[in-house]
């Protein structure tokens, strides 16, 4: 924040779509992208007489997330109806949890840019169902409604107002999303709406205890968008207050195209949802044996894995953090280290961070879609370790591997890239280079150390980069001394 007398007080509400096969209260498919209204039934259409039956897997996934955040899972919780009218909500209410959510407390350990961890507490996590989709512009006839998404399970994760800046909000959301992805309970795609975030924002003079009047900003559809929207809104509130005005308690929409917030017109009585317990549903009981079963399936979480990478593989914290960003990259690293026996883990780490991740970026693919699997990469390391190829040539081989299905060995053979380590033939080349460059030899001998690289380069050029760099160095030193 530009003004250092002020601080922001931020609480986030995150909706995460659970990756179940079927909906929360009916067995319609949750598959994304099917024909409009092909995954609907009397229950999710809200037809009279249809009754909801809860999806066991939705509860399991929700509990998994709650446990990962160290929350307390309630043995008994109840469902409530949240009443409001909107065309994509056919029942006229959303089934949610209000007074007794299934999970309370817990925290997210957000990793700030300087590497310190800030713990942001959670108020609650509750289970609810999603609404359908309204499409306002596809037909002249009116607003088109697709209810395929209607009834898809969501968890809502509500933080305490512990967040003090947009950067902290970013760090919170990053860790939250990362954890949900590690757990495999949500695909984390903010652009497609499987992860959505609303922010409650107020500002206050530093050192004061009371909260200022807050606004709620909705429509935050990327992790960076959340950071930008919070910065914008906090700055707006500060300038309103500094010019003697007052902040109105209202709901705002983030406009990502124009990078501004705008007022929602229909704010009138917007929050009068008249919650009451849903008479169609009995209490949800989560026995401790069930919780124990779920606990046993929790994977190693990002923070723990990062620490283990430092300890077990002797990696710098920076490497460990980059490699554990996603479970898939972390798995790829560990698998490669295991297969490329005798290779320094740091070497594998360097290779993945500079080569593999760059290729993924260029091709815009996930590591799981990457052609060069750990077993193929491990062979490449073996060739380096054995001295068959140099590190530099290995990059060439690797490039070739991303384009073909050939093994590293086949490529080395086919392109004749085997490293030249034969001292006799290298010595001849070294002598030739020295003979052909008397001027540089003069310079080198008069103390210009830098010229040494020139000789190395010349030998490499003569061998198309295949000369063993260590031997070339040794031979050159000897010949020039």
């Amino acid at each position, binding site marked *: 924040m530009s003004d250092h007398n002020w601080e922001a007080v931020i609480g986030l509400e995150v909706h995460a779509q659970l990756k179940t096969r079927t909906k929360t209260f009916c067995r319609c498919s949750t598959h994304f992208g099917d024909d409009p209204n*092909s995954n609907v039934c009397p229950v999710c259409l809200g037809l009279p007489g249809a009754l909801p039956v809860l999806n066991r897997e939705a509860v399991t996934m929700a509990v998994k997330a709650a446990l990962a955040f160290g929350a307390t899972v309630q043995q008994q919780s109840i469902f409530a109806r949240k009443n409001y009218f909107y065309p994509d909500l056919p029942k006229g209410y959303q089934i949610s949890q209000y007074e007794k959510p299934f999970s309370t407390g817990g925290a997210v350990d957000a990793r700030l840019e300087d590497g310190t961890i800030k713990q942001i507490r959670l108020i609650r996590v509750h289970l609810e169902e999603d609404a359908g989709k309204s499409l306002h512009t596809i037909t002249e006839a*009116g607003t*088109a409604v697709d209810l395929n998404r209607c009834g898809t399970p969501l968890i809502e994760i509500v933080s305490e107002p512990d967040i003090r800046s947009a950067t902290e909000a970013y760090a919170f959301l990053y860790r939250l999303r990362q954890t949900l992805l590690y757990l495999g309970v949500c695909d984390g795609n903010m652009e497609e709406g499987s992860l959505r975030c609303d922010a409650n924002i107020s500002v206050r003079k530093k050192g004061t205890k009371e909260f200022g009047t807050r606004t709620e900003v909705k429509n935050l559809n990327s992790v960076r968008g959340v950071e930008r929207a919070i910065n914008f809104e906090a700055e707006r509130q500060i300038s309103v207050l500094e010019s003697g005005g007052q902040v109105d308690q209202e709901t705002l929409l983030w406009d990502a195209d124009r990078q501004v917030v705008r007022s929602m017109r229909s704010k009138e009585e917007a929050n009068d949802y008249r919650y009451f317990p849903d008479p169609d549903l009995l209490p949800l009981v989560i026995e401790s044996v069930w919780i124990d079963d779920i606990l046993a399936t929790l994977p190693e979480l990002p923070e723990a894995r990062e620490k283990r990478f430092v300890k077990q593989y002797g990696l710098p914290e920076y490497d460990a953090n980059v490699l554990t960003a996603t479970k898939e990259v972390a798995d790829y690293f560990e698998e490669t280290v295991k297969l490329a026996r005798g290779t320094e883990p740091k070497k594998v780490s360097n290779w993945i961070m500079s080569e593999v991740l760059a290729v993924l970026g260029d091709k815009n693919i996930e590591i799981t879609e990457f052609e060069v699997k750990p077993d193929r990469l491990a062979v490449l390391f073996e060739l380096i370790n054995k001295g068959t190829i140099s590190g530099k040539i290995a990059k060439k081989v690797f490039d070739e591997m991303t384009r073909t299905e050939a093994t590293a060995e086949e490529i080395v053979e086919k392109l004749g890239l085997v490293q030249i380590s034969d001292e006799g033939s290298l010595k001849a080349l070294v002598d030739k280079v020295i003979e052909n460059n008397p001027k540089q030899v003069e310079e080198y001998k008069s103390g210009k150390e830098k010229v040494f690289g020139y000789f190395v380069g010349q030998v490499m050029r003569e061998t198309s980069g295949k000369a063993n760099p260590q031997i070339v160095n040794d031979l050159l030193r000897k010949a020039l001394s």
Partner: protein
Amino acid sequence: MAVSREEVQKIAHLARLELDEEETERMTRDMNDILAYVEKLNEVHTENVSPHSFLEGKQTPLLLDKVSQFGNVSAALGNAPKAEGSFFIVPKVIE
């Protein structure tokens, strides 16, 4: 406990109902009668009864996450006043 005309108007608005003077009058009277009747229940002592005692030992049943499609789009759209393709169509919602 009494419900005022204003409260009735507010509830009507939330339910997207338009009540004229005479209807508001009648609704206010009816709702007050209903509340007065329910008020009688307050005479029963319930200090030691849990709010869900009638559900004691009961819990919501759970189903496995196995797809079972209804698969009848035209039936789903059949009751809609307006449809186009396989979409429900409602009056344009203006943001």
